């Protein structure tokens, strides 16, 4: 502490006192009457005055430069951030446009294939088989009765300490698994159709389904038998989430729907597996 005390009590530069003492001694030697009082400033000649003025101007320039540099740095950071946000919006819009184009082209391919196959009897059998497989694998738009399950963060979950009321990727995974186990044939989360290769995972604070970030509330549409809702509610997962809705205020509803339409999956490319040549 003595170091800090020293800094506080001797805040003024020691050099000023030394210089004042030297001046006083010089004055005393010269027999000046002013020897007993400190030398007063203000009798400076032009040279030293200029030096002080130059140094003070330097200090002013230093302060101004620092202030300008700081503000310019903040402005540059803000500009860069805005540019990034703009890029994100732009790229998302581009991806959406490409997805629409893909949907259109897939529809064209389907139409062309169907018309080519319908020419022969064997072709129409194949055509029926293909559309059945597409419905199962997520390759085509499907409709039918089912349930709509919504999951949402608890109302007071925004605080970082309440992770119990927050929906994570594993919650969506559990509900989807339970729905499939209850007999669901096709499932989509917030309009993203699930296939056998769709990943439900977490990146940062966002849940990604098929690598697209989703925002709560999460709406899980499942097409299946008429008793899908009751079967799902009876599963371990269904009763667990109903319990957590009561305990943690989690948003969780299961509603039967007479008619649901699920889009086709975006990503259907198979890289490694190859179909067996028919004998």
């Amino acid at each position, binding site marked *: 502490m003595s170091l800090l005390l020293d*800094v506080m009590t001797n805040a003024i*530069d020691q050099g000023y006192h030394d210089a004042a003492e030297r001046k006083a001694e010089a004055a005393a030697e010269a027999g000046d009457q002013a020897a007993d009082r400190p030398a007063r400033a203000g009798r400076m000649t032009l040279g030293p005055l200029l030096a002080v*003025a130059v*140094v003070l101007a330097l200090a002013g320039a230093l302060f101004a430069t620092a202030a300008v540099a700081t503000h310019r740095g903040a402005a540059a950071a803000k500009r860069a951030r805005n540019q990034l946000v703009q890029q994100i919006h732009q790229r998302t819009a581009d991806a959406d446009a490409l997805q629409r184009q893909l949907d259109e082209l897939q529809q064209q391919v389907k139409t062309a294939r169907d018309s080519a196959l319908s020419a022969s009897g064997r072709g129409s059998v194949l055509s029926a088989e293909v559309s059945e497989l597409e419905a199962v694998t997520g390759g085509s738009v499907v409709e039918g009765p089912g349930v709509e399950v919504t999951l949402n963060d608890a109302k007071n979950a925004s605080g970082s300490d309440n992770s119990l009321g927050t929906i994570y990727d594993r919650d969506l995974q559990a509900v989807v698994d339970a729905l499939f186990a209850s007999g669901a044939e096709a499932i989509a989360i917030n309009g993203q159709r699930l296939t056998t290769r769709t990943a439900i995972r977490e990146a940062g604070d966002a849940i990604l389904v098929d690598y697209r970030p989703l925002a709560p509330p999460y709406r899980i549409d499942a097409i299946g038998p008429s008793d899908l809702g009751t079967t799902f509610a009876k599963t371990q997962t269904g009763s667990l989430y109903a319990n957590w809705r009561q305990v943690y205020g989690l948003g969780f509803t299961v509603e039967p729907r007479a008619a649901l339409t699920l889009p086709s999956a975006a990503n259907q490319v198979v890289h490694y597996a190859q179909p067996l040549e028919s004998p």
Partner: protein
Amino acid sequence: MIAAIALAIGVVLGVVFHPTVPVGLQPYLPIAVVAALDAVFGALRALLDGVFDDKVFVVSFIANVLVAALIVFLGDQLGVGSQLSTGVVVVLGIRIFSNTAAIRRHLFRA
């Protein structure tokens, strides 16, 4: 009076020309600013105490700025740059604070 005018001229020059600080020197700018503030407030207090000396002011200003930057540079080379900057800011901050307190006592007698 002349001192205040010189300071104002410096600020205006800095704002008008806003010289770009080389990237290598940028980390030392804040420390240099704190050291310069300390020297200027110290000089103002010395003036009010009646012990101001032009030579001491010029030498202490330039030396303070250079030494503060040098300490931080040395710290950067040894991996304790941010800690040493904090130390420099604390010590100079205390000095600035007690000097402004002394100036306040001179001006307002309170």
